[in-house]
């Protein structure tokens, strides 16, 4: 089992979600996060005083998938989230040792 984590531009969330639904993904978790990459942030000015806002808002999507589906999921997210401009984000995959569905107690692949 794998956990696919994607950091994307917030306005791309809808497209990514649709792409994942089209692959048959049953669930995902979305969080609003802040951070910076090579895009860095921006500058705001209040009464002449400059503030550097170097943490920009992003959306983090987490999807648990079976090992066989990982490549398709990663490709779908990458395609849907891409604008070609700096700041599009990152996708990474990590191993997952165990998964439990809370309601039924099902484990691992059955719980996905």
């Amino acid at each position, binding site marked *: 089992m794998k956990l696919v984590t994607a950091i994307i531009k917030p306005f791309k969330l809808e497209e990514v979600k649709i792409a994942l639904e089209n692959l048959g993904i049953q669930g995902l978790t979305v969080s609003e996060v802040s951070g910076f990459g090579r895009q860095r942030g921006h500058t705001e000015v*209040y009464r*002449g*005083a400059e503030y550097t806002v170097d943490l920009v808002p992003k959306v983090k999507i987490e999807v648990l998938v079976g090992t066989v589906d990982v490549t398709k999921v990663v490709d779908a997210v990458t395609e849907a989230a891409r604008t070609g401009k700096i700041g599009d984000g990152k996708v990474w995959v990590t191993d997952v040792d165990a998964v439990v569905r809370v309601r039924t107690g099902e484990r691992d692949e059955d719980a996905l």
Partner: protein
Amino acid sequence: MQPAILLAADPATATLDSGNTAWILASAALVLLMTPGLAFFYGGMVRAKNVLNMLMMNFICLAVVGVLWAFYGFSWSFGATRWGGLIGSSANFYGLGNPDVLDSLWGFGPIYKIGSTLPAGIATAGAGVPVLVFAMFQLMFAMITPALISGAIADRVKFWGWTLFVGIWVTVVYFPIANWVFGTGWILNKIRAEDFAGGTAVHINAGAAALALVFVLGKRVGWRRDPMKPHNVPFVLLGASLLWFGWFGFNAGSEGGADAIAGLAFTNTTIATCAATLGWLLVEQFRDGKPTTVGAASGAVAGLVAITPACAFVSPLGGMAIGFIAGILCALAVGLKYRFGFDDALDVVGVHLVGGLTGTILIGFFGFDHGALAGGVESKRGLFYGGGLKLLEVQVVAALSVLAYSFVITFIIGTALKKLGVFRVSEEVEITGLDESEHAESAYSFSTVLSGGLSHLTGSTSEPSESKSSELSGKGV
């Protein structure tokens, strides 16, 4: 408030003027709204952890000054002159409930002459506005002036210490200065400086006091290191808009009646503010590359401040010039705190002191013959209208006198309160935020999960669990 008090030739002929009275009543309500408006203007500019404290610092001014005004504030500000024009006092005004006060009319006619004394009762006749109506109108000025100071020392003052300061400050600084400028005192009646609605008494006064307190209290923890940007810019513009709305009462109401001069004051209040907004935004465009919302709000307030003393003494084009100049000067002045290293948190010095000085002194240049309109009031012209330097001189004297008195006395009051340990909060409180530490509240509760549960319920035996769970069920994950 140029035409101050007319001594009644014959009180029996005095009659109530319902038109004037209605306008002053409405103006008083307009000016009252300025203090909550100011609270939002300031509240939007502080960090989210201090916004309630900022609102409260303004709102408490309404409560404290209103009570003191009824006891002795109105008497000290508008009673018969004492000590050579340094303060007023009139036994009839204490408590405001005297039948003489209830029945009498306040006069707005030719300038009250020094050396005359008020009659045994109360000055009557003139424009036929009841004394209590006038007293309530002037109360609103006394309320907002200390509130203006609060922005300079945002985020670092104990609430009750501030409340105590407000009571002492209006007593020994505002009431005397209001007497000098609006009442029977020396600025209006001896040197005859022109300040229609309070450029000196309100804005230079508050700005100078703000500067003194900034020195007394010192910088906020983390100033110039931590980001302290405005947490709610829409509040700032909303507050500025409420201020502008209320300012029509402040300026046009200061005529004391509903007439052509009130119309002139209203016009200048509009035109100067428009020009100042443009002036500030142009500075930002050239200096910072972008026109900002906070800049537009600040520019409008700078224009309102600057036109306050001048609004009935200049032509609309003169008002436009004053507003434009003030917008540019104040936009540049707010950067001075970084150069000189004083933490005037919300730029009370840069906007109110600089704007007040600009408007008060520019009357010496743009002063225009309004006497023809008013009928009987001594006309004065500034340098640009052939009046020479005389008016400019008295304007500078009035401005600097108020500045110096306010700065020195405020510095003394502030230092005393700080020594007593009742003024500045601890570093820990400052870092936690004053909303939580001083008021046990938080302004915004965005998350039902993270905002905590009830640890104690008073006056109710019901279990909170049911309502809590239904609240949570709608949230999803």
